[in-house]
């Protein structure tokens, strides 16, 4: 069945419909990872967006369900050049096509994803519609333009507190628990929790409507604020609670959206990037050691460097390509936040050592 991708600038791509047969309007973003499409699909940070994979062959190794980063797939739609008809991997359980259908996610295949990526790169992230119906461009363009990503943190976060111990999420149950960590789930990937469990942490995960005083009262050794989707400034309530966490003396490590929320909570500003960083090849430099790590990234907003108050926090990591802030160290506080994803999945594990830094922060 034919499907169309209509961008808000009027560009139309014609391809084949894949996955669920339904119409969606969404923000279109591209990801340059060459592997890890399932991790991308199940990353809650993509809620409200449709993902274009720049690598042209998707689905080659099928779907290995244990690689999911959350309970379900989050993007509104999936855009690829070619889906493999023969998934081949010893852990494969189904095709991507089936997975998309099971998750009720529509998509489009057979389009020139590089041409699409170039449009997004040149004009910036924009909205688009995927449909299998005949459309009237004048009529749909307005609707496409009107779309904005809202309410996604609420959508992806959990409803209730959940506790994890080593042995959960496929980790080794023989690991001794040495630390208690509170995780604020604003859209967490499983591997953040897994990285903590593997290092001997018992983890209590709080939903996005958590109360800071409850978290502080539980006396965790440390707090982790996770990744998540959308415009950070929308999370007014969460930011207020995080401000309280900041005021406690509990060591805090935050990733991605968590990093942005902490910055906003302490008076800095965030801004939307032209087309964001989404991929598995972004170099970030640790300003303390000058070491460069290749990192996994997925963000469309960034902490604005000019808004930083040097007395509150200073850059700890920068992006080698564009110089944007990739991490902050909070002055006089045991708080450390990064924009990139040390938990990887998908992507390189080079910066997973930062979890060890967090463990040390809790020990000091």
């Amino acid at each position, binding site marked *: 069945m034919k499907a169309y991708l209509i961008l808000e600038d009027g560009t139309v791509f014609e391809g084949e419909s894949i996955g669920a047969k339904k119409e969606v309007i969404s923000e279109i973003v591209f990801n340059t990872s060459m592997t890890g499409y399932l991790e991308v699909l199940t990353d809650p940070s993509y809620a409200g967006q449709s993902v274009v994979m720049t690598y*042209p062959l998707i689905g080659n*190794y099928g779907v290995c369900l244990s690689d999911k980063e959350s309970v379900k797939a989050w993007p509104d739609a999936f855009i690829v050049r070619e889906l493999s008809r023969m998934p081949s991997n010893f852990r494969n359980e189904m095709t991507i096509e089936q997975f998309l259908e099971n998750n009720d996610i529509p998509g489009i295949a057979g389009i020139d994803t*590089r*041409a699409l*990526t170039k449009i997004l790169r040149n004009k910036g992230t924009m909205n688009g519609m995927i449909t299998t119906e005949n459309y009237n461009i004048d009529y749909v363009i307005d609707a496409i333009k009107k779309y904005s990503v809202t309410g996604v943190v609420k959508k992806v976060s959990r409803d209730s507190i959940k506790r994890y111990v080593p042995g959960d999420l496929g980790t080794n149950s023989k690991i001794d628990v040495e630390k208690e960590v509170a995780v604020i789930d604003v859209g967490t990937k499983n591997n953040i929790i897994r990285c903590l469990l593997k290092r001997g942490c018992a983890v209590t995960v709080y939903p996005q409507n958590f109360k800071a005083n409850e978290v502080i009262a539980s006396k965790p050794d440390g707090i982790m604020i996770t990744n998540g989707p959308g415009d950070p400034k929308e999370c007014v309530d969460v930011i207020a609670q995080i401000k309280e966490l900041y005021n406690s003396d509990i060591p805090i490590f935050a990733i991605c959206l968590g990093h942005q929320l902490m910055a906003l909570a302490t008076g800095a500003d965030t801004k939307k990037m032209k087309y964001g960083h989404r991929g598995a090849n972004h*170099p970030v430099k640790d300003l303390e050691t000058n070491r460069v790590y290749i990192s996994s990234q997925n963000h469309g907003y960034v902490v604005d460097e000019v808004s930083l108050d040097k007395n509150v926090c200073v850059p700890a990591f920068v992006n*080698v390509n564009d110089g944007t802030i990739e991490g902050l160290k909070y002055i006089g506080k045991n708080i450390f936040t990064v924009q990139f994803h040390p938990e990887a999945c998908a992507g390189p594990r080079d910066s997973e050592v930062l979890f060890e830094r967090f463990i040390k922060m809790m020990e000091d």
Partner: protein
Amino acid sequence: MPKLDYIKKVLVIGSGPIVIGQAAEFDYAGTQACRSLKEEGVEVVLINSNPATIMTDKDIADKVYIEPLDPSIVKKVIEKEKPDSILPTLGGQAALNIAMELEEEGYLKEQNVKLIGTTSLTIKKAEDRLEFKKTMEKIGEPCAASEVVETVEDAITFTNTIGYPVVVRPAYTLGGSGGGIAHDEEELRDICANGLRLSRVSQCLIERCIAGWKEIEYEVMRDSNGNCITVCNMENLDPVGVHTGDSIVVAPSQTLSDKEYQMLRSAALNIIDELKITGGCNVQFALHPTSFEYCVIEVNPRVSRSSALASKATGYPIAKVAAKIALGYTLDEIPNAITKKTYASFEPALDYVVVKIPRLPFDKFIKASRKLTTQMKATGEVMSICTNFEGALMKAIRSLEQHIDWLDNAEYKELPDEEIVELLERIDDRRIFVVAEAIRRGISFEKIHNITKIDLWFIDKIAILVETENKLRTNTLTKELLSEAKRLEFPDNVIAMLNGMTTNGVKELRKSFGLTASFKMVDTCAAEFEASTPYYYSCYGSENEVKSDSDRKKIMVLGSGPIRIGQGVEFDYCSVHSVWALEAKGYETIIVNNNPETVSTDFDVANKLYFEPLTPEDVENIVDIEKPDGAVVQFGGQTAIKLTEALLKMGVKILGTSAENVDAAEDRELFDEILEQCKIPRPAGKTVFTTEEALSAANELGYPVLVRPSYVLGGQGMQIAISDEDITEFMSIINRYTQEHPILVDKYLMGKEVEVDAVCDGNDILIPGIMEHVERAGIHSGDSISVYPAQSLSEKVQDMLVDYTGKLAKSLHVIGLINIQFIVYNEQVYVIEVNPRSSRTVPYISKVTGIPIVKLASQVILGASIRELGYKPGLQKKSDYIAIKMPVFSFEKLRGAEISLGPEMKSTGECLGIAKDFNEALYKSFLGAGIKLPKHKKMILTVQDNEKYECISVAKRFKALGYEIYSTRGTYKYLKEQGVDVVCVNKIEQASPTLLDLILGHEIDLVIDIPRQGEHSKDGFLIRRLSIETGVTCLTSIDTANALLTSLEHADMSHLEVIDIATI
């Protein structure tokens, strides 16, 4: 960290002559690195014995020594030039070994020279099997169970503890020389003994056999600050068991999930960090196909063939970055030359698929075993890029120029299914065609997978191609079907053949549907950043990215495709120099080529690079978009020449010698007319098509005769026939492929062979020099020792040569280069071959005369005259130096290959010996080719009857040098009668001890075995093979033997002088 201050003068060691396992990739890496060093203001001193390379040009390094890569010579260069550092990681294993030797003996310390780019400790940890295993154990990276052995018995004892099969890997060898898989004790004895002999340190690794696992490689970079990145990973379509150089390789990996990809990536980084490599490194893994178990196979702590491939596949210039790292820079300080926005500390993201297929030399060695093992056999490779795997595979297949444009190999059509299944078990260069045939027969994917272990994903992709074939055979060519076939890169001629149309018909139909190729950019970043480097590949059904508007006139230079015997790196040298010369004259240059190993496909050589197959259709796609003002075909060997007619049809102007005149040189009748007009004699000859015609021609001319197809390079299929049986056999070999052009049968004259390269501007000619071959006619010019300036030609003969060259160039209206081969026989000069194009000797003669021939030819092509360029026409003044080009062979890599020399070229590379004195030049050229004698002063001499007379003096001279000579009965008797004292030894079939036992005793320096032309005796073949496989020098020509004698008689290393050719 910024550049290290103390580094001011760096010695770069090249990789020497091209042999299997160490080829043009090191010219690419070395050239890039030298330019990268010079960019930083460092003075570069280069030593490399290979004159055919671009890196040995005076434009590339400040001081250039084309000298033997022998530690003693490298020392002389160090003492003369006093560099502060040595960069040994760019010249392959050869350079690394020399650097290690100098370091280990304390010489570098003594001279206060530092190794940069790596340390000896790193090299040792990576290269020494035991050290490597220990290091891997320390960091918890698994290796296959293995043990280093120094005797065959130890190998057997160890194998008994882990069980057969085992892999044998000799330490410190090239391309896995001497390695293999042993399935039982007998095989183990055989392979291990051979491996121990070939290993520099007499060590072999005996290893658990992991054949059938996935083979995955990572190209990794690390700087002195410990920053690590992976440039890309690659998956071998052929599972473990086939050397990666002989495997079909895909980038990036296709069947690995992110978990496996990152697991191996982390392991690769872990390894490079532990080895403390500063620069580039290649890590090879075996990954169990149904678990997360993996083993580290090998680490190469230097740039390699794989790194060249990775550079071309991603656009990340590994050698350039490695050179900068060696100077002290860190990855985040080195800008990405493609995006200019990012830095070298960034991992390329691909949005296309890359396929590499090796070019194997079995068309030259039809008797050699085609079995692919852990010992590399390929001489070169092609790479292709497409947005899908099927398309990339199809493009790569036709890039090979092996008369096959799709997954069809006629050999299998008639075979029954059972035989196809049996063939699947055979691992050779045709396996992918067998897989396709098996799919056509309906053999299940699982069965194919179970036998071949090729991943089902790849098998399915091949099946998609087979299904499309069937649709093309049976269905009407609708727009949908044609668009799908083009998306999968079926060329028009194949579609036409399958669908019963004409190629032109398909092309027109396709264009009427609006189906044309578009071009995408290789940009390192999957379009995330804007890139400025015009490096393109074609695909269908996509937006075109090429901006073809230019205010300059455009010239397209056609490259020479994969490196193969007969068409080597020399032609890349010519293509690159032509590009540079044209660009200097203000033209926009466009290069088309498909060889990932070469300098020409470096993205900053031409203004635009099209990485495409060199077929008429693929070139036309580029022409349609670029509309070049002209094309140059005379520098890209036969590959480019073959495209002349097609280019003319496209309306592209051929610059330089016209197509008709190129044709006149190849067309026997036209050429004969020209010779007649010029009154130039040639050996009598005839043109034939059938065996019957050939037989009658041969009998009319009288044996011996030379038989060869026209329009070929490297004497492909050329043989000397001495009987009707020979003619019958040779004709059947030549006619394996339908011949478009007639076959030539010529009277064979056993005279002196002479070769001339010249530039002609239409009026005047410039001859840089005359080259004379040491071996008499009958041995291919590429396999002969060539001497410049000619030593034994009379004034009269030289004048004739110059006169004939001028006449021929003018009659053929040559504009640009011409190469002519002559025979001098009884003071008479005969023409045997004229090639109105660049030749194998162009780089060599350019360097030793200091005359930039390709540059001049390129300017002449653009309309300049030789006089305008400041040269006096005619034969140029002889150089003060004697320069000898010595062929180098790779016979030890090719089991079963016949090594005796003849009219079909067999050498893979060459080295140079240059000196003021002939004997010294000769000595250097033998040394450069690895012939370092004497050792034990024992040799074998066996000669056929009609050459026995000439062997008397050979034997006497060896005796005078103190050699003990062993001969079989005939030669023994003859020499005894002539008063030469030789030892008689039994022939192979006689009682022990025989010749074979003697060779296996490891005390023989040299075997001289002169077979009769067209000899089929098994004995001689066995002796020659055995000597090659045991590392004994084997000569098959009396002339070569005499040259070696001259060299040995004057061997006095003490006064050898090294020469900087930049001063010539």
